[in-house]
Structures are given as structure tokens and as C-alpha cells.
């Protein structure tokens, strides 16, 4: 069962990754096939488990101020800063559409 080009393009848009080459796409397909094995188990009437932590106690913290005040440290790794603000591009720059960008998927 192949993963369609539309789905691959959609994933590239969402996650800002690219599948690079045929091997990358194949790896994805194999991963999907592997996960699909889960569908073979009959789970009728069973509540899904989404975390191995489900029996753990969720720790509740007291509402005290215990951190922050480390502007200098946080900005140390920023490539660009303006007066203690982080600098980012003006809004999201979406990935160009499939026909307009360089991607392996073009040829598929």
C-alpha cells in the first residue's frame, strides 16, 4: 500500500521536513506498514491506553514563583536579538506549492 504524493506533500508542509529521496519515502512506507500491524488486534470494547504513565500520579506543584529572571542566559543562543527580544522572520513563510519548489516528490 503506497502513501500517495498528496499525503507526502501534506506531511512536508506540516512538519517542514522533506523526504529527500526514494529511500526516504520507502522508509516512511515501511514505518506505516509496521504500525498498521496494530490494526490486526481486536480492541472492541477496550478503552485506549495512550500513555504508560496512566497509573502514575500527576504531581501538583504549589503556585510559587521559583524561576525566570534569566533573560541574558536565554538570549545567549539567539542568533539575532533586538533589545532583549528574540528576532524572527515576519510571520510564517509557507512552503511553496508542489509545482513550485525543489523536492524529490516532483518527479513521483
Amino acid at each position, binding site marked *: 500500500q503506497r502513501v500517495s504524493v498528496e499525503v507526502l506533500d*501534506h506531511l512536508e508542509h*506540516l512538519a*517542514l521536513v522533506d523526504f529527500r529521496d526514494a529511500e526516504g519515502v520507502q522508509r516512511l512506507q515501511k514505518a506505516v506498514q509496521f504500525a498498521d500491524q496494530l490494526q490486526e488486534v481486536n480492541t472492541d470494547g477496550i478503552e485506549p491506553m*495512550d*500513555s504508560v*504513565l*496512566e*497509573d*502514575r*500520579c*500527576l*504531581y*501538583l*506543584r*504549589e*503556585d*510559587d*514563583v*521559583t*524561576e*525566570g*529572571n*534569566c*533573560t541574558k542566559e*536565554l*538570549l545567549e543562543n539567539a542568533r539575532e536579538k*533586538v*533589545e*532583549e*527580544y*528574540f*528576532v*524572527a*522572520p*515576519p*510571520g*510564517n513563510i*509557507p512552503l511553496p506549492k508542489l509545482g513550485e519548489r525543489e523536492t524529490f516528490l516532483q518527479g513521483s
Partner: protein
Amino acid sequence: LAPWVPVVGLEIHAQISSNSKLFSGSQVQFAAPPNSLVSFFDASLPGTLPVLNRRCVEAAVMTGLALNCSINKKSLFDRKHYFYADLPAGYQITQQRVPIAVNGSLSYSLCIDNKMSQMVTKTVRIKQIQLEQDSGKSLHDDTRSQTLVDLNRAGVGLMEVVMEPDMCCGEEAAAAVRELQLILQTLGSSQAVMAEGQLRVDANVSVHHPGEPYGVRTEVKNINSIRFLAKAVDYEIQRQIEELENGGTILNETRAFDSKLGCTVPMRDKEGKQDYRFMPEPNLPPLILYDAKSLPANMNHQQVINIDWIHERLPDLPSVKREKLVEQYGILPEHSFTLLNEEGLAEFFENVVKQTQMKPKKVIGWILQDLLSYLKQHSLTVKESPVSSFLLADLLNLLEKKEISSTAAKQVLAELWKGEGKTPLEIVKEQKLQLLQDQKELEQICQAVIDRQENE
């Protein structure tokens, strides 16, 4: 032309009033130097983990109870993924699958035809309340083509209150939000000041013909006050009706309200439908809440949240306060609305009543007409009133004892507004406003007037 039925739903984000953030110990404060209230977790540095703030959970439970919701004893946290510079982790921790509270209701009142005397009560269903993180703030610098990011707000606790599309116009939406605001402020779970971003409202608007399925809805954002909420909703309803009557279609899009132009415009950064790739938050076990029956015996009580304990300690909600005012003082329901609508006014009224022999039904007129209109004219809050409840009570006592007339009382009040520290009695004496009670003196004056007439 067939009639149109507008449908309005609301998504309201209320910032939780707490000292520290939802999942970290950095401080929650409105104005502070950029990036000074940011912990490593808020900045999404690797190796950090979320730790849930107990106070935020309590705030959400209180709010859920006040809105007649069922509190889910087990609720879950999820990740909602999207890319934006002010969301450093690339996802927001929220409660998409099983939120903390569901299926509530909110009652609010409207004046029919702008007459305060005819009020009607409406109800809007509350779909759910969920706990989630706030994002940081982006400052757009168009001249230098860059965005400046301040993460002080990133990670602050929010309660998202989802109201079902039971409303039909701007006025209803505004009244519902106003009542929610009063409830939150009474509970103390949020200060809900819209101007400081503590209460944010997005409206979902669509129109359809009666009997037909609901139309395509648009989401309207960037609404900065309750007044603008009513305007934005009404504008969008009109826009959709006009578009459809001209043979056009409505796009399922997000629009921003432009308060200067009074219209809604498409928002550029929201392209197509977002796919948030929801997944369970792997670092947080389910949130378990207890009640009196299910309370575990051996747990550290700091780790336990008891819904019944919280319920017992809920303060009187605005609707209850209004009923009590009407019952206790014999004032009209619409009076009770105005009293609660102005911060501190109900307390002021009660303080005056305590200190005067004048009946509350008469006092209320002085409060709502004279005091309130003066405060409004000079844009003052009740706290800032130059006339204290003590002074007003003093004045009303003079009136009640018939030492001055009602007209004179208004004159004295006008003098009191100057805030020069004079007592009502001093002003009455200064301006010779005392009512003459002496029969003989009155006869003399009348006789003098008659004599003058005869001489002319």
C-alpha cells in the same frame, strides 16, 4: 426575500489569575521587561518537563462549577502542533480529547428595545472548559521585515470556555461575555480584563434560512472589547447576508476585526485548513480529581483536589447577588444589574443604606441617577468618587429629616463633587438652603410679599 437566521458561537480564552505559570514556576505578570519572566521550560529548551500548577486546576474547577458543568474526574492533556515564532515548542499543551469540565450553561440578561425596564433572560450552553498554555507575544516590525518575540506570556495558564452557537446577534454575544466576565471576577479565577489580554474572545458566525442546514461559518478574531465584540459579530452577520444575497459564497476562513474601519477582513497568515496533529502529551499522566466520596485515605492532601470542598467554598455568583439585593432592599431587578455592572457600586449602595434612615428604594435613585451619571461624565470609578458613601448618607439624612428640600439636596451634592472637604451640613449653612420650619417666620415672609404687591 426569505429571512436569515444568524448563528453565533464563542471561544473565550481567560487567563488564569495565578502567581506562576501553568506548567512552570516563572511569574505571571502583565508588564515586565521582555523575556524576564521566562523559564527554561517556557523557552522550550531541551531537557525540560511540564509540572502542573495546582492553583490553575482549582481555578478551572471553580469556573466549571460556577457554569453548571460536569467536572471530569479524569481529564487528559494533549499536544496541538503548529508553527509560529511565539510558540517555541512548536506545539501547545491543551486538553482536546477529555477536558476538565463539560456540558454547562450560562444565563445572561438583555434589555428589550433598549429599555432597562424590560429584561429578558437567555441561556447559552457551555460545551466545555479546558486548561491550556498561552503563547508568547509577537511584535510585528513591518519596516524591518521582522517579528520581535517576547515569551513572558508563553506558558501562562488559560481556561478556554467554548460556548455553543446558541446566540443570534452581537448584543447577545456581548451580554453573555459580560456575564462570564463578572462570574470570573467574582470567583477570582481570572481578572478577565480585556484590555490587558486576560480575556480574549473569538466569534464563530454563520447564517442560514430557517429549516435549512447551518451555513458555512467564519471565525472572527482580534476583538479587543465587549463593545467591539457586538460590532464585529453584527458586521459579519450583515456581510455574510449581503454576500449570499448577491449570489456569492462564504469561505470557511478566519477573519480579523478592524476596529478603526468597523469591518472584518481575511487574515493572511491562516492559509487553508490547519492540521494540528493532536497527540497525547506523553509527559503528563491523566489529571485525577476527587470528591468527598472518592477521597483517597492515605494521600498527601496537597496532592489532592476535592471538587466538593471547592464547591462548598464558591462565593455568591452575580445572579445570586442580584436576587439578594432585590429581596433585601426591594429594588427592581434592572437596578440590581446596574449595581453589579459597576465595580464597587453595590458595596457603595449598601454602605449608604446602612448609614441612612432613607428607604433603600429611595436611595437607589440617588445612586443610579445622581452618583453614577456624575462618575460617568467624569470617567471616574466608584473608588475614585470624591463623594464617599458616608457623605452621601449624611446628605440623604438631611433630606429625610426634611431639613432641606430635594432640590436643595441636589445643589449640595453638586457642591460636594468638588471634593473640598466640606460636610453637607456646612454647605447647607453656607448657601442658606435650610428649609424653614418655623411657622411664624414663614408668615412674616408671606406677609412681606403680599405687602410689597399692594404697594405696587
